[in-house]
């Protein structure tokens, strides 16, 4: 059997997950010299771009401009997209093995980590990721409701998701109305009575994950005063020493910004965004009716581990925050795919440099690969997934050269499409997406917004002139 990769017998690759990593990998595969590759990209939802559409905040449109480069990849004649097709529901790994030489899982980190404290499951305690998916119009989350009738809300964490949520809760309806936030979220946030938003960091200001531009943005909100507590943004000896020896100017700038916030006099804006440091929630308190009535915090002190990382240690000093709404944002976590070995400890697909490993022998499985957050965990910015995908593609090319690839019984794009259409008659193509994109942009233009998002699969089908109950012809 001749090695696939030629005009007559292209290398067929299935990419599961249409987020940034999937596109970066597709781009790198198409760029391999002398190799003819056919790529079918799948996603659980009808639309592509993963977290760029469903995660990146609606008031951060600039970051979303990266999708222009994704569309260039998708315009390749040997690229196809199948939206609303889910692994484990419409297709199995065995189905894919029968149609492709190589499978690449780029499903990201779909769920959040839990805090592991009493009261975590009380009413009005949520995963920040669900709130994010809701305000970004993810079809699976649009039905969620958030009780915004409370005056005080707390967000646990100071990473970029936590900061996004804090900003969205603190912005005015007018500010939000200029973004592509989902209509249902805009409507709910218009009626919001939230006036105080707490952001809670377990470590000090120097260790907070948020970036300097993110911190600056918090100080420029139209109708929210940013507040920091002087004692909490004061540098401790360990942090000061660590910053000095590393000559870390960016962190110094961040601390300066936060200390300047602590000196600010509130200007009488209608909302307050309060940045807290060196505190960890130890319990969510019941209001007597099964909902969040408050949050008990413990004050932390920093200590240095062997490697010099500063970590928090509880002091035994407690404080109660009277909040009625809680969002936890203490990290994302990957979800196992049916039929794919999973490393439960790190919440990633079991892999070595992107080669999926057999769960028993810990040896590479033929023809199965992974990249992005589901490979290494949720770290870095969007672009970090590019070198990560490159590492995996290098493994794929090494294995191809060594004749390690799957031997599918039906290695044709027609056979794959027939199977997909049989299993999921209502799947979406890239052409479908481009049409939907045009409609979203046009509706946005009419209302002075970047776009107005579709948030229901039925609406998307209707806009394409397809009937939800009937398969496309």
């Amino acid at each position, binding site marked *: 059997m001749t090695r696939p990769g030629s005009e007559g017998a292209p290398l067929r690759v299935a990419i599961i997950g249409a987020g940034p990593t999937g596109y970066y990998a597709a781009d790198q595969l198409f760029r391999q010299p002398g190799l003819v590759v056919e790529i079918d990209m799948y996603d659980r939802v009808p639309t592509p771009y993963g977290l760029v559409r469903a995660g990146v905040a609606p008031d951060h449109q*600039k*970051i979303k*401009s*990266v999708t*222009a*480069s994704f569309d260039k990849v998708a315009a390749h004649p040997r690229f196809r997209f199948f939206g609303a097709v889910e692994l484990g529901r419409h297709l199995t790994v065995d189905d894919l093995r029968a149609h492709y030489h190589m499978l690449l899982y780029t499903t990201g980190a779909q769920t959040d980590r839990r805090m592991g404290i009493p009261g975590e499951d009380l009413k009005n305690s949520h995963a920040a990721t669900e709130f994010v998916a809701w305000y970004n119009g993810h079809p699976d989350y649009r039905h969620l409701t958030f009780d915004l009738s409370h005056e005080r809300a707390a967000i646990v964490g100071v990473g970029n998701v936590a900061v996004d949520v804090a900003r969205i809760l603190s912005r005015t309806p007018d500010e939000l109305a200029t973004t592509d936030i989902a209509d249902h979220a805009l409507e709910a946030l218009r009626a919001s009575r939230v006036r105080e938003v707490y952001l809670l960091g377990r470590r000090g200001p120097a*260790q907070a994950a948020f970036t300097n531009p993110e911190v600056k943005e918090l100080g420029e909100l139209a109708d929210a005063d940013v507040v920091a507590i002087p004692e909490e943004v004061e540098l401790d000896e360990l942090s000061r020493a*660590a910053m000095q*020896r*590393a000559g870390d100017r960016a962190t110094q700038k961040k601390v300066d910004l936060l200390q300047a916030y602590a000196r600010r006099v509130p200007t009488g804006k209608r909302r307050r965004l309060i940045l807290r440091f060196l505190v960890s929630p130890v319990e969510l308190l019941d209001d007597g009716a099964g909902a969040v009535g408050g949050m008990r915090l413990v004050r932390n002190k920093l200590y240095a*581990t*062997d*490697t*010099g*990382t*500063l*970590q928090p240690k509880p002091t035994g000093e407690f404080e109660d925050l009277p909040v009625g709404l809680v969002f936890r944002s203490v990290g994302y976590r990957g979800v196992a795919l049916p039929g794919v070995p999973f*490393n439960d*400890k*790190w919440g*990633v697909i*079991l*892999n*070595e*440099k*992107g080669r999926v*490993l057999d769960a028993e022998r*810990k040896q590479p499985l033929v023809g199965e690969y992974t990249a992005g957050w589901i*490979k*290494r*965990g*949720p*770290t*870095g*910015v*969007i*672009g*970090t*997934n*590019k*070198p*990560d995908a490159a*590492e995996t593609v290098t493994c794929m090319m090494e294995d191809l050269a060594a004749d390690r690839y799957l031997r599918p019984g039906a290695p044709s794009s027609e056979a794959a499409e027939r199977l997909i259409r049989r299993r999921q008659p209502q799947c979406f193509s890239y052409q479908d997406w481009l049409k939907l994109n045009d409609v979203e942009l046009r509706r946005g233009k009419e209302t002075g917004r970047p776009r107005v998002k579709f948030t229901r699969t039925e609406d998307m089908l209707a806009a394409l002139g397809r009937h939800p109950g009937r398969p496309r012809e």
Partner: protein
Amino acid sequence: MTVASLLARKGVKVITIEPDQQIRQALALLADHNIGAVVVVDPGARPIGILSERDIVRAAVRDERGVFDRPVSALMTRNVIVGVPQDDLTSVAYTMTDKRIRHLPVVEQGRLVGIISIGDVVKAQRDQYQGEVDTLQFQLIAEQDKPAARAG
């Protein structure tokens, strides 16, 4: 970025040896797995030392013939600096460079869960910087394209 994300893409293999095994066996492990150090563990999988190729080179210069038969415990470094999965990459990079450590065993509740090399750290940092540069470039280009599009 934390140590955990470096370990996530390294599989779950950690090459270990016991203190009473011979240097000969340690060398075979280093060669077979193409690595520069092995973690020395007690029967409870707790790391009690680390044995690097340098430890063996130094001993071989002193004792050309006998080195192969010596026990691992005789040459290993005992005061091992260990990491935990929650350690920050920047602190780890600083400490490894500062103390000239090339391998960092990672423990969780006293048990060995992985090992990272200075190469892993450098690669992770390079990918992080590359990613940031790439993302910033894209935003700059998008910024520059905006007024042009409006003018056109």
